[in-house]
């Protein structure tokens, strides 16, 4: 029976104006997305490769010099690897920095060169671009905004419309249980929405994958599969919402009105407003505070060590003091940088967890984490870089330890080994993504989305069972 109702719904929908318009709209959007991606992605990859090559060249030239040079100058610039699934979710990548610097060994303006530290560039506020601010047409936009609206347009009259025409009474006079009708309608709507979406998505992927410029590996396809599944789940949410309101309301015009207002509130209004409120609840360190603290601590370290700063002595005591001076300064600067970044990211994280109340934002975050872009990806990048920095430091100590002639005082040229280091031995930074980790991290959000869908579906069921016709 369910099959029968589903089939009927499907035929009804396939012949309708809304289906044709949906197909057109989704195809146009996905085409724009694919073309935009093909246009931009090769440039992105090229820039990344060139930058990484330059950074590695610099590193190997330091390697040729000495181990001391490596200790002094650090690993250089570390770059975030662009995701091949950038077209799924842009995730504010143009605002996020794509680089972390491991360098700047200068101590004060006096020309003494100490040791390197990690420093994190600020998120660019894009203040140089003066054009209008628009959302990029990516899958996240298409699904979160357009597909949800379409799902509502397919269901707002599915029960109230039949009631208006009197066909509902007719249908219920046959001995069909109500939940069968509801499930049939739900499935019918789901299939009729997913046909155009699947079509458009396949076309999009076809264009992208036939181009030689973008390479999608097995993992990327797996991620795309998950993204597609999430999109369907999200569509179910709005279909269920549509059925719920449609069952409760007598007239379809009213039902649409209510649905649209809910849509505007949840999809458009809530994400930004809640973010603004939430970010106020957890203030971050301001850059002024950071600088005040930095200059204080710098002064303090300088007062303790300035007696060795200019010293030309090479006895063990002076060298140890110099090394301690350099490392304390670098650690202090790195710690402050980290604290500053952590407080900023924590504020954003806080705001993000609150905005998840809106399903559209939830979907946005899910897509971002599976596409390997956006904020969650950025914190992964930061973690990767920090882990690498640790590895790099350990490498320097290990190499130095292997030379018995060295004084083992890291950070001063006289205290370190003078043996050559093989360029191949130096650890290289590789920014990696792992699907299982992403999956783990976003399991909560997926469950939340599923929960929302189940709640709404049972709500629709209860509403439909109790309603009088």
């Amino acid at each position, binding site marked *: 029976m369910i099959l029968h109702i589903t089939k009927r719904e499907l035929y009804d929908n396939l012949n309708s104006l809304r289906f044709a318009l949906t197909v057109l709209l989704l195809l146009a959007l996905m085409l*724009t997305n694919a073309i*935009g991606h093909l246009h931009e992605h090769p440039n992105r990859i090229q820039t990344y490769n060139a930058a990484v090559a330059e950074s590695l060249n610099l590193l190997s030239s330091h390697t040729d010099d000495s181990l001391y040079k490596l200790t002094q100058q650090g690993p250089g610039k570390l770059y975030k690897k662009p995701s091949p699934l950038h077209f799924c979710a842009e995730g504010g990548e143009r605002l*996020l920095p794509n680089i972390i610097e491991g360098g700047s060994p200068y101590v004060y303006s006096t020309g003494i060169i100490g040791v390197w530290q990690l420093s994190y560039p*600020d998120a660019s506020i894009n203040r140089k671009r003066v054009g209008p601010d*628009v959302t990029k*047409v990516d899958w996240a936009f298409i699904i979160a905004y357009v597909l949800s609206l379409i799902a509502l347009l397919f269901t707002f009259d599915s029960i109230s419309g039949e009631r208006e025409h009197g066909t509902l009474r007719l249908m219920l006079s046959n001995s069909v249980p109500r939940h069968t009708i509801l499930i049939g309608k739900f499935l019918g709507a789901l299939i009729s929405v997913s046909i155009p979406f699947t079509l458009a998505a396949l076309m999009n992927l076809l264009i992208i994958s036939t181009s030689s410029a973008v390479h999608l590996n097995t993992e990327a396809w797996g991620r795309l599969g998950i993204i597609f599944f999430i999109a369907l789940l999200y569509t179910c949410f709005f279909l269920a919402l549509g059925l719920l309101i449609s069952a409760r309301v007598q007239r379809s015009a*009213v039902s649409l009105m209510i649905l649209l207002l809910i849509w*505007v509130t949840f999809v458009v209004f809530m994400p*930004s407003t809640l973010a*603004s409120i939430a970010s106020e609840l957890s203030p971050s360190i301001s850059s002024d505070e950071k600088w005040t603290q930095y200059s204080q601590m710098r002064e303090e370290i300088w007062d303790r060590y300035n007696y060795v700063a200019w010293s030309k002595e090479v006895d063990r005591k002076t060298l140890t003091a110099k090394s301690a001076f350099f490392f304390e300064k670098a650690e202090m600067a790195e710690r402050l940088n980290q604290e500053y970044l952590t407080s900023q990211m924590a504020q954003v994280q806080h705001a993000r967890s609150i905005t998840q109340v809106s399903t559209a934002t939830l979907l946005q975050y899910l897509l971002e984490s599976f596409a390997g872009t956006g904020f969650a990806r950025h914190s992964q990048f930061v973690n990767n870089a920090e882990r690498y920095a640790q590895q790099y430091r350990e490498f320097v100590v290990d190499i130095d330890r292997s030379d018995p002639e060295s004084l083992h005082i890291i950070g001063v040229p006289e205290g370190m080994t003078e043996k050559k280091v093989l360029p191949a031995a130096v650890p290289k930074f590789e920014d990696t993504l792992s699907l299982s980790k992403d999956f783990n991290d976003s399991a909560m959000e997926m469950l939340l989305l599923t929960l929302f869908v189940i709640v709404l579906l049972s709500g629709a069921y209860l509403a439909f069972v109790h309603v009088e016709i």
Partner: protein
Amino acid sequence: MITLIRRELLDNLMTFRFAAAVFIMLLLVVATTAVLIRDYERRLASYDTAVKKNRQKMLERTTYSAARLTIDRSPNPLSIFNVGLDKRLGNRLGVNHFFVPTLWDAGKHGSDNPFLNLFSSIDLVFIFQGILSLLALVFAYDTLAGERERGTLRLVLTHPIRHGQILFAKYISGMICLLIPLLMCILLVLIMLTTSASIFLSIDDFLRIGGVVFMSFVYLSLFYLIGMLISAATRRTSTALMLAMFVWGFLVLVYPNMILTAIKTEPHPDTTLSAYNKIKRIWEEFDRDRLQYLANDPVPGEKYHFDLRGEGYTFRGLGGDYPSSLLYYHLTGFNFKTLEAESEPLVPHVQNYLRFFVPQVTNTAERIWLVRKPALDALYTRPAKIEQMLLKFSPVGLYDAATEAWTGTDLNGLQDFFTAVQRYHQAVIDYYLDNKIFESRLWFVGAEGDIDWNLMPQFSFKRSDIGINAKRAFPDLCLLLMINLVLFAIIFLIFVRSEV
């Protein structure tokens, strides 16, 4: 005619959709306004701290060459209506003698968290843009198709009434219905704005808000007419509703984002690079001249700071390597509190050198500006203008641009501020030249309190007066009105020719 309007009005006002519309509108607008006012207060507080801090830092400096003149941009209270570029562009700009400041050199106050820009920010115009248009369509889609379906249209037309009158009555009554929630919202917003302690609105500001409201009205009318057009062209209300929704989705949601993803407006990177290299070359040439001068100088072998010794420091740089904003400059400065006795004989030489050197720097900066301005325009302003124009093919873009012009948060409005900073930059240089400060001893040595910083020219900026706002909004307003008229004419034609 009046009877018709009254009938339509009552029909509309008594519906559930009207009540729901008013309720949701008010709720959203009040919540948004509260958040936006809070946001404005925070920006204002950050501005106040920055001004205080900068003033304090300026007073700490003891020589003119180390002067720290920083201009802060205050947030625009009308950004609550349309935030435009007000929040995005830099709000701190240093004024120096070695380059002409532009909006691309501006930085941000230190208390912001730039990561928060990941969240989109909304304003009242954005809410109106989405919801007013939606309401207008929902009210209009069944005005003609509904009556036709129910057969009441035929009934009405049996009376000796002209088609035009019916249309007009429907239009007027629909607009009145939509104006009620709009005006209620505006009044609530005004109440919230005037009761807030931190926001001061002048009479001009109220007039500007009036301009925004008028634009909203025209925008509303445009979408109402689109709805009527769909209603007149279709036979069934359900078709009309579907069409209306898709038209809304396309115009409001899809088009603005799609068109700017599809069309790339960035200029060729070589053009900017060549401008940057040209600027760099000019400065390097200048540096050669400077070295030439030093070589011919009677004091042999001195460096740029003439080996001055004393309590304090010197700084120098040829650089400021910012290709993205085409900034490259020559910077030399001294910050001595006292000089040692053995450096004193050098002072006349230094003064001679500075008399030649610093005016050259300002002249070169002027020359650079002639290269930099067109290059920056090509790099940033022109693409922005093209993008804005592309958006104007949708009424949403027109509405946004026009309200931005009224609130003064558009590119022109912000450029006014930066032009004022440039004027101030010129005034400071004139002040330096008039008082022979470049060659004075205070340029490089000064104890605390030697310079009275209060004598410096003061920066002041007044937002452009309302006439200019109106002038900037006028073309878009005209376009919106024109589309309104054309739509009305089309509806009339369709309605007259259609069979009932």
